[in-house]
């Protein structure tokens, strides 16, 4: 239930979270975006849609994902109790599938036959290819050429699932360019195509819709931590690229102001070097890919190519609801360098027997920084939003190991 004085009521009917969000798209897409909005509103109100989604999340995705007390890490850090929300145990190995199941159900409901998606790390591409195969729909995934090089296992997975993986050679050849290319495809094949956006970014209604589909993470955490500890956590920690895993965890807690929300961005080589992907920490308001939000841009309003060792965080923008939460002071921010993320990646593997994806390794590095100074009674829940199998080549290279 939403209440009048809730932070969970956004966006407004035009898709704005405060001054952020909106629908900054070419006219060609407007009729489709309005159609999508109507279809989603309709589906939201249909108890049958919700029931079917819940069933698939249980039987196909494997939800609920466990909430795990990371006891050895907690012991090693000597401070707050650290829990992992184990969304890396989902089918396809990351949180991305939660959203894809919801959107493919909507695509079917709207009678769309052709699915397109953009992908950075390949997790969203794999999740999209998976649900498209599952529903028997044509699937085209746009992926930057540079990301294809650093995420070979996921490229093979997508192809195995029957998707057409199209390399994007324009611009920086990473996630933002893949999104440009997907938008171009959508403009060209607008009638028959459903664009499954993987993050809480893009034009309205995507940020709200993706958030709603990912909010299952935070809802489960509320139930699980209450059962386990009899109260809500003191802090939630999640990595933010576009921001879907973080929003999924945070959103059900927005009104619980005693629970701090900590978003962790990629500092790459360090924010001071300019080689990073920390739009909320170091960006300024701007408009990209259909929404107003924080953006990495130069003095002329040109988009700066981001840098992160994590392909999933390597994006110059961020979801508009995060921008708003930063603006109103609800969201706390941190930034973690490539080096720190790699250290956390190794430490987690050895201490907990869990190889994290490089994205949650950023969140974990922040936990490692702050938990020791927190009281032992305090509770941190971190979103372990993906597993690290896809990153072993990148990590090995960075660690100087030849495979």
């Amino acid at each position: 239930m939403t209440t009048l004085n809730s932070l969970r009521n956004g966006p407004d009917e035009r898709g704005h979270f405060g001054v952020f969000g909106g629908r900054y798209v070419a006219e060609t897409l407007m009729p489709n975006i309005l159609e999508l909005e109507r279809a989603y509103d309709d589906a939201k109100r249909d108890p049958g849609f919700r029931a079917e989604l819940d069933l698939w999340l249980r039987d196909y995705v494997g939800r609920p994902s466990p909430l795990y007390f990371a006891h050895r890490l907690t012991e090693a850090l000597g401070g707050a109790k650290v829990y992992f929300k184990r969304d890396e145990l989902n089918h396809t190995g990351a949180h991305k599938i939660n959203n894809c199941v919801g959107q493919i159900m909507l695509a079917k409901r709207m009678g769309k036959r052709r699915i397109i998606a953009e992908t950075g790390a390949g997790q969203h591409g794999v999740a999209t290819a998976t649900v498209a195969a599952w529903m028997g729909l044509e699937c085209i995934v746009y992926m930057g050429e540079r990301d294809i090089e650093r995420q070979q296992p996921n490229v093979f997975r997508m192809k195995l699932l029957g998707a057409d993986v199209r390399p994007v050679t324009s611009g920086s050849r990473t996630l933002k360019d893949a999104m440009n290319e997907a938008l171009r495809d959508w403009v060209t094949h607008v009638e028959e195509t459903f664009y499954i956006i993987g993050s809480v970014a893009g034009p309205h209604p995507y940020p709200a819709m993706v958030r709603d589909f990912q909010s299952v993470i935070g809802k489960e955490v509320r139930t699980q931590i209450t059962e386990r500890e009899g109260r809500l956590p003191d802090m939630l920690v999640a990595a933010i690229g576009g921001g879907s895993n973080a929003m999924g965890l945070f959103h059900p807690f927005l009104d619980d102001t005693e629970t701090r929300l900590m978003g962790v961005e990629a500092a790459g080589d360090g924010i001071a070097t300019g080689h990073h992907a920390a739009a909320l920490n170091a960006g300024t308001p701007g408009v990209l890919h259909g929404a107003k939000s924080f953006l990495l841009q130069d003095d002329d309003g040109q988009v700066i190519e981001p840098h992160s060792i994590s392909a999933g965080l390597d994006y110059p923008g961020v979801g508009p609801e995060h921008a708003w939460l930063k603006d109103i002071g609800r969201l706390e921010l941190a930034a973690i360098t490539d080096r720190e993320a790699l250290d956390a990646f190794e430490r987690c593997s050895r201490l907990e027997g869990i190889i994290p994806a490089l994205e949650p390794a950023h969140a974990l590095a922040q936990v490692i920084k702050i938990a020791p100074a927190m009281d032992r009674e305090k509770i941190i829940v971190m979103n372990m939003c993906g597993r690290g199998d896809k990153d072993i080549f990148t990590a090995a290279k960075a660690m100087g190991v030849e495979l």
Partner: protein
Amino acid sequence: MSTRIDRRFADLKERGKAGFVTFLTAGDPDLETSARLLEGLPAAGADVIELGMPFTDPMADGPAIQAASLRALEAGMTLAETLELVRRFRAKDADTPLVLMGYFNPIFHYGAERFLDDAVTAGVDGLIVVDLPAEEDEELCLPARAKGLNFIRLATPTTDAKRLPAVLANSSGFLYYVSITGITGAAAPVADVVGEAVSRIRAQTTLPIAVGFGIREPEAAAAIARAADGVVVGSALVDLVAQNREAGGDAVVDAVLAKTRALAEAVHAARD
């Protein structure tokens, strides 16, 4: 209030001709060549000039225009320089309407109010901002109109009868009909289909209708000129910049203006 754009289309109508609208990216391949191109366009037959404001992520444009943007940015082009280019053009040409076309972020970053003031001062007549649909009119469209600039909107094959009034509201100068669902420089439009669409739109507006996207050759331009009030050619000109830039500024100017003359002649003679 009548603008240069209004006057130009009224004049063309009186003479029973369609207008020829050119698109080039500001600062492509470099500032000086770009200035020479602009200066040469009216004599080569351009009735309205669209000048692209370079942007790193032009998501509604095809490879040709994205490449033009990146060439211009690499050569150091900025929004301030684009406005300066217009000012230089306007000092020599008081009559040819000039429309700036691009994406919202550089304008937003520059400051919408400051941009509008500087655009008016420089001699800009209209704006096309691809990623500002009617739903976001408060950002730029309404303030631009208040300052006497035309705000030109795109209508597309997906703009159905229900959507068209929203597109037409607050539009002025002319309506830019995108002849295909797709990006700039893509497949060629079919003249008959375009003609039907133009008639459909004409029933709902008195604005002149210019048609663009995918028109590259004089014959195709002439066919569209029989149905529409204006014909827009962009990628075909921009491609010539790309092909000739290695040979230097003179080669670029010669090639682009020769093509402009051929297209303009075809457009102007189409209804004879």
